[in-house]
């Protein structure tokens, strides 16, 4: 068995050197660049032979190195260097070692792109032949690309999940027949508004003569009428209003920040007028109308959902009893003082 001896000097042919370390730089005794490997040559097409090392490179770490003697004193340490290249500097990891027994024979600086290998490969169109056979640069490139692909796959998965979630949420909040909100969505909207103290108008809408349409023309005709009614409700409300189908032919509309009774009455009148128009289905004419009860949150010292719904229902049944096809405001829903005429109208 051979014993390795300290201080033994190996003689390595230049070509072998180049294969082992294609990113090395040779420095002469005065610190000038005397040669470099084939891969380093690709980075400096203009040539750097004879250029002082500190003119071509800046040593970032350890800091304060600015002469060949400084560099020689740091032999064997891990260096961070930058090849000065105008606006496109290249960062390296490096190690410097004296060529023979001392720096007097010159030094060898071996370099690696480190983490910057991905950019370097792209910038200088390097191939696997440009790296030492032991270098993990190609594995690094592989990992970066594979990781990017995996991340994109995961992102696609996350986006699909998010889309499914949104669809499920919308479906859970929607009445499938009419596309209006359902009870659950209505409850959440009312809860949100009372909790935040937002004022709102509340309208309970019940179709008149709907049972007759169902009994006479069948459920398909009934469904068609309900969809048509939903269209009217859409048309007569704003995007921020919540319109829900809460029973077979019962609807609730919530109007955030809309508490003027007169205004709500006008809206209700328009709804009733539109719903009272004849609806054609399969060559038959269906006729319905609507009764509406209205109340507003600002007519209560402490608006309470159950109480408001009860009052809107009471107003709705008052409309029914008074002959249908009309809207009534709950008696406690006082109009704003600036509209005294409304009080008269409601009492009439």
């Amino acid at each position, binding site marked *: 068995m051979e014993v390795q001896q300290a201080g033994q000097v190996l003689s390595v042919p230049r070509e072998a050197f180049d294969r082992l370390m294609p990113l090395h730089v040779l420095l002469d005794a005065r610190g000038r660049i005397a040669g470099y490997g084939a891969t380093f040559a690709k980075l400096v097409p203009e040539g750097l032979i004879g250029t002082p090392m500190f003119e071509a490179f800046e040593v970032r770490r350890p800091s304060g190195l600015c002469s060949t003697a400084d560099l020689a004193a740091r032999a064997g340490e891990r260096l961070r260097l930058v090849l000065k290249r105008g606006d496109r500097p290249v960062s390296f990891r490096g190690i410097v070692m004296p060529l023979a027994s001392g720096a007097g024979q010159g030094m060898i600086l071996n370099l690696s792109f480190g983490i910057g290998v*991905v950019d370097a*490969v*792209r910038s200088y*169109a*390097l*191939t*696997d*032949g440009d790296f030492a056979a032991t270098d993990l640069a*190609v*594995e690094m*490139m*592989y*990992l*970066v*690309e*594979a*990781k*990017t*692909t*995996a991340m994109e*796959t*995961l992102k696609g*998965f996350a986006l*699909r999940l998010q889309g499914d979630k949104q669809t499920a949420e919308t479906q859970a909040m929607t009445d499938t027949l009419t596309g209006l909100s359902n009870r659950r969505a209505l409850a959440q909207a009312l809860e949100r508004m009372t909790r935040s103290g937002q004022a709102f108008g509340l309208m309970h809408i019940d179709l008149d003569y709907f049972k007759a349409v169902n009994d006479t023309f069948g459920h398909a005709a009934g469904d068609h009428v309900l969809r048509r009614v939903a269209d009217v409700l859409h048309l007569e409300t704003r995007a921020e209003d919540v319109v829900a189908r809460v029973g077979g032919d019962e609807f609730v509309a919530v109007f955030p920040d809309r508490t003027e009774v007169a205004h709500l009455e006008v809206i209700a009148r328009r709804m009733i007028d539109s719903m009272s128009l004849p609806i054609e289905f399969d060559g038959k004419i269906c006729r319905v109308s609507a009764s509406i009860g209205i109340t507003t949150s600002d007519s209560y010292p402490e608006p309470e959902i159950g109480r408001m719904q009860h009052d809107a229902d009471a107003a709705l049944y008052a409309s029914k009893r008074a002959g249908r096809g009309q809207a009534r405001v709950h008696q406690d829903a006082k109009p704003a003082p600036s509209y005294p005429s409304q009080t008269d109208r409601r009492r009439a």
Partner: protein
Amino acid sequence: MLGLINRSFQFFLRDTYGASLWDAVARQAGVTPAGFESMLTYDDAVIDRVIDAAASLLRRPRESLMEDMGTYLVSHEPLGTVRRLLRFSGGNFPEFLNSIEELPERGRLVLPDLDLPYLDLSDLGGGHFRLRSVSRLAGAAHVVMGVLRAMADDYGALVLLEYHGVEAGTEVISIQIADQSLYDARPFSLGMVG
């Protein structure tokens, strides 16, 4: 089995034979038409049901379908990801072949759950190799054969492949590299395009 493998089969069937064939396969195999998610894990039996369903609906032997799937992964997969990642394994086909044993490890580097076949290569000399494959997926060596055929094509090498059957759970393929420099290799750069 990681969904990535199931999903690859799904996309192979959909891209090669159309969405309606995939829907029929999904129905017969008891899988939702939306299919598989790459990063989820599925029971091993599911992929078998998918391959069996496709083989019976297309009236094709399971083995040739699996080999086509291997070829598809390298040559026809729309993003060309598999081809690119495999090309990192070597500068030419012999280099690629000589590092093929690293494949499962390379896969696990990125996706720890990815279960690629365990591969064992013997160099018999004269460009003749024997590859043994062990996998939880029965017949996986046919997919490997499809991949090898497509990669040889990619490197511009002419190879003869032969399936030697299965022995004690190990599938055996023989590989003869007939001519390495017959065609030009398709271009490949280490850096990603774009």
